[in-house]
């Protein structure tokens, strides 16, 4: 275990936000989960005993005479927000005194730094470049992510769960978010920060980042495994595989969604439903492709003269 190396990575001013992000992420998930659990219990009680709704307000506390039905934002909310603002100011001030901007030497066009890393918030995108060709990872995927985020309000037909934490009422939405944001986005940032060393090679935490390290890693394209040589055949083969994935995946998702989420399914139009299917399958394709690459050394599945998937 090379603690020196680990400390060097963790203490680099560039990486401090990421190191800080990890506990914060767990903390806020825990907090949200705790509140969601309490709310879900209350929802359960209210559903069985509608009379309770008259004696309970503010979700958690039972009603008491003399309590105000509603409290004002000022001062009751703002005083807490202001306290939070002070604490954040303290953190920022101490941070700026103790850690300097990570400036480096003037850029040298003849010498590329190794590893050359994007700013931390783009490390996820950079990690995607390992699995897809630049056009897909750099242009298509980011565009789809943005469009997908924009589309959410239009395909989300579930009226419940706004304004309070709940798991029971929004299992699908929250599950998808947890998967897409925490497993895919945050995990890829952590991989990019802690795992990727010189030559963008995979170093487990605690392994020394040796610039001279050589590893045997030959990636093959999926059509090659099947002995397909002509470009046309490769294109057709890839299209069939990718199409097959979307078709099979679509049926699988359809089966589960209808079974476990029948209310939403009923509320959604065909257009909403198929858009949801497309984005969900595209998102799930990313970890599948990662697994294919990391475990089976498969470079591309679909090869065309214009793009590779």
């Amino acid at each position: 275990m090379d603690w020196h190396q680990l400390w060097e990575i963790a203490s680099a001013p560039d990486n401090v936000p990421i190191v800080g992000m990890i506990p914060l992420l767990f903390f806020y998930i825990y907090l949200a989960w705790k509140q969601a659990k309490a709310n879900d219990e209350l929802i359960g009680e209210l559903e069985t005993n509608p009379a309770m709704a008259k004696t309970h307000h503010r979700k958690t506390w039972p009603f008491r005479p003399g309590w105000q039905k509603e409290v004002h934002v000022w001062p009751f909310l703002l005083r807490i927000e202001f306290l939070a603002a002070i604490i954040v100011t303290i953190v920022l001030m101490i941070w700026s005194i103790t850690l300097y901007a990570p400036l480096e030497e003037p850029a040298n066009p003849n010498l590329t730094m190794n590893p050359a890393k994007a700013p931390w918030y783009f490390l996820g995108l950079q990690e995607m470049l390992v699995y897809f060709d630049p056009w897909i990872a750099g242009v298509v995927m980011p565009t789809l992510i943005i469009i997908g985020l924009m589309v959410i309000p239009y395909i989300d037909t579930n009226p419940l769960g706004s304004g309070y934490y709940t798991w029971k009422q929004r299992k699908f939405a929250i599950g998808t978010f947890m998967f897409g944001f925490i497993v895919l986005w945050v995990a890829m940032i952590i991989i990019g920060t802690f795992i990727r060393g010189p030559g963008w090679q995979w170093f487990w935490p605690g392994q020394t980042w040796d610039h001279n390290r050589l590893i045997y890693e030959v990636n093959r394209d999926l059509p090659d495994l099947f002995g397909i040589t002509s470009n046309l055949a490769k294109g057709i083969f890839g299209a069939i595989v990718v199409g097959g994935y979307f078709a099979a995946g679509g049926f699988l998702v359809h089966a589960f969604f209808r079974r476990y989420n029948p209310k939403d399914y009923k509320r959604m139009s065909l257009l909403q439903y198929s858009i949801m299917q497309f984005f969900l399958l595209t998102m799930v394709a990313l970890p599948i492709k990662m697994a294919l690459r990391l475990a089976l050394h498969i470079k591309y599945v679909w090869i065309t003269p214009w793009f590779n998937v």
Partner: protein
Amino acid sequence: MAEQPIPEQDPVVTKSYALHYVVAMVILMASLFWALWDEAFGQRPWKTFQNEWKQRYTAFLKTAESKSEKSQKDVTQTPEYRQLEQAFNQASEAARSRRDELQKGIADLSAKILAVQNVFTDKRAFANAINYEIETETSASGKKSKQKDLDDYKKEQWTVEYPDGHKEKYNFQQLEEKYNELKDERTKLNAELGEVLKPVTAASTLMSAYINEHMVDLTPAQIEGLKKKTSEWDPKIVQINVAEANIVDRCESCHMGIREPLKLTAASMTAKGEKKPDEYADAFVSHPEPALLKTHDPDKFGCSPCHQGNGRATTSVEKAHGNYEHWLWPLFPKRNAEAGCQTCHSADMVLVSGDVGWTISEAKDLFRQKGCMGCHRYEGYDKEPEDLNTVSQQIKQSEGQKKDNIKEAADLMKQADAAESNEDANRLNDKAIALKVSNSKLDGRIQQLDFQSHSLMQDMKKVGPNLKDIRLKLNKNWIPVWLKKPTDFRPTTKMPNFRLTDHQIQAISAYLWQSAFTDAPPKQKPGNAAHGKELFETRGCLACHSIGQGDQMMGGVFAANLTREGEKANYDYLVRWIHNARQRTRPYCPYEKRDLGPEDYAKKGLPYQFDLEHSQCPNDGHELQVQNMTVMPSLRLSVEDAQDIASFLMTQKRQEPSAYADASFMDDPKLKDEGKKWVRHYGCAGCHEISGMEDEGRIGTELTYEGSKPIERLDFALFTVPAERGTQEPITDPEDLARLPEGPAKGPWYDHKGFFEHKLAEPNVYDKGKIKSETETLRMPNLHLNKEQIQALTTFLLGSEESSLPDSYQYKPGDSRGDIQRGWWIVKKYNCMGCHQFIPGQKTILMGLPQYRENPEQLPPKLLTEGARVDPEWLRRFLSNPALSEADTNRNGVRPYLKVRMPTFSFSDNELRALVRFFQALSQQPIPYIPEQVPVLTAKETDMARSLFSSTAAPCLKCHATGDPQHDKIATAPNFLLAKERLKPDWAERWVLDPQAISPGTSMPSGLFRRENNQWVFAGPTPPSFQGYTKDHSRLLVDYIFRLTPEEQRRVAASRGRTGASNVTPSIQKQAAVAAGGGGSR
């Protein structure tokens, strides 16, 4: 939440956050103050430095001041100063009454002027404003009305109240006149005051000048000034900003004492009560080389161009010194500080300051002498092959151009014949003629280029011997033993250890043996070894070569140690080598790329003769390499003497040559090809001339800008991480470990310095732990350097940087200083400094030898002022043939009495030109030299001069050679007949007046003449004819010597008789002894 008890009061409304707020605010305020402190001090550590500086420097100045006061007191006690003081008092007494009057008058006038001025400037401002309005008014009527306003205004009357209370009224014009009148009056009074005070100020100036002249250190007044400056100092960034070179250096914000006029040491800057100097004391010292700052004014050069570091950074010592990961030019370590010189002075072999003992100068010598440029290109080193390449390309180009021209001319003529009109025909003909003329120009150019290549061919030298000659030269069985580890045979050799395997050794020696010349050298008669030893020790061989090993070693390290020469050498070849090392076995034609033999000459019916006069290829007319590419000169010995020396050297052995194991594998033809591969692989041809590899390129990386190579490009291999973390010293071999200048690594060494030092100490260190094939291993051989040498070379490499400074900062002078640079290259190339002293204080190798300690007059002449001394045209002739004679060459031309021989270096025309210009430039002599006319003496003057020259009181003829063989045996100075051509008359006169000033330690006596009534008079008893002679006796003597003819010399010698020569007047002899002792060069 049924389980939770429900509070009485609504917690959202009633919960108090007061404590939270108190705690948060306290922390916020604390961090605010922390931020303020950080802003004022944390980020500005130089403030603390400056405050410390104020305290410590003031304390230092106080002690310095009391010392200075004491010495000033001593000065003011002297009668001279008293006299000056008295004069001052008298002058001020005399001037006092008038001075007081004038000062009072001036004060009165000033008050009056002020009173008038107050009113006048106010009115004038108003008038000017109206004036402006008139000027810019467009309508004529408006102009008129405003003009009227102005005129009215100027007629108004205003009151001026004078200081004494009385008032007066003036209009505008009167006011102006009054004002000017008062001012004129005051100027007059001021001028008079100056006149009155003149003697007083003059006297006071004399007083302070006297103090300044007679005090060694600063005067109390000066120190008082420094104290005042220090106490009034407000902490601020001290910055040198040179916009043209993009230099912003804030180093002096902490290093406050660096330019102070007093010498500050760390000890003197240590705070009271402290024992050891702390970081402040170390920072406050003065610059250790103030002389360097004089030539490199910090206001123009800043600090970082020489020292590097981050001149702009002020937040911490590490940042400012650039000692952090992302600053690419960290401060040069103290031990390698001279690396900074190299960044601008890479073209200088000897830095201009001329001081001896500079690490960087030693490093340059080392780099050259060890033959580093055989494998590594370095801009400026070993440039002859590159120049030669350029020249031969130009020749080819010109020849091609000529051919094209001929073709085109013929074409044009044809067109002219077929032209339609006469005009066209003439035009085309003219063009053809022009082409023919340009061809004749090209012919001239080609000839010049041929001369160039002749010179360059002569200048081209190799560090190692010519291996084409090994069959003639060497004991065959010795070769594999040598290759195994050269230092085992000869510890001081330049030949490095290549770590060859036995098989590689066999293959390499087989290739070298089989590709060498098979001609046999002429047989030589055995010589007299005892006489040879004497010659070896006296002819000057030891200036370059050494003999004896360990403590017994004697002589120079420029060339090989000859202690075991007898084991390896072939006697016949050795004789030829000593007689003339440049003599080649066969000439080499670079055009055909092969060595020519007698058959090539026979084909053309030419005699098989090749030397500098016969240097053209019989086959294609190109310049041949007709010399061995060695710097070893010819000592112009007779063949017998060469045989004697060779016989002596053959006795130098520890074992018999026959004791070496048989190496008959060297004749195995199967090994030859493999051997060639290894010879090429290891770049042997970088230092040696090897058959078939005359045009081999260098195998190493270029080092010109090695210091600025990104650290990522330096391959630490498996030691990258250990070097970064300082966890492991890779060198384990104790011999190599001992080479590290600072011992085994104690901390991180992942920097250029660490890389170079380890690489030089053990060149294959970065192969350690790697699995590599024979051809992949690092090839750099172990140069068996010592600590000092590695430190010097590291300094050299660290300074080998691509400078960010503008070209004007690089020292590449085009004037005579450039001549000096080029000259040093040649002087160092041939090791001239082994025999001659060029710089005062420089030690020559011969000076250190025991045989010269007793009789220093046998040392070769010092060349301190050679350029001022000799006629450059004569110098050129002398350098090309130091015997100064075509027939009688086995002697010294100027100083036949010296046993040590000025060798014939067979300099090329280029080198002769450069050397002559070098000597001229070194003595600041103008080029070209126009000789001074020596006047013709009258018969009477000649008689006088002769009588002086030959008088027993003047010892000239005792030491100087006269051409009489019997006398010349004991002569210790050159013949006067040479003076006319050789010397410059003005120098000769300076020489006879004070030779010690020109060449300290010379045996030429000083004090031959003394100054009497503005005239140089001979110091001994003058002959009677000198009565009433008013010109300088010294000048007369010099003129006489410059007009001396052989007949005259014979006549004088005859008239004197030999016996008289040694009978010198005792008084002069004594003077001579005093002068020689006073010179103190020994």
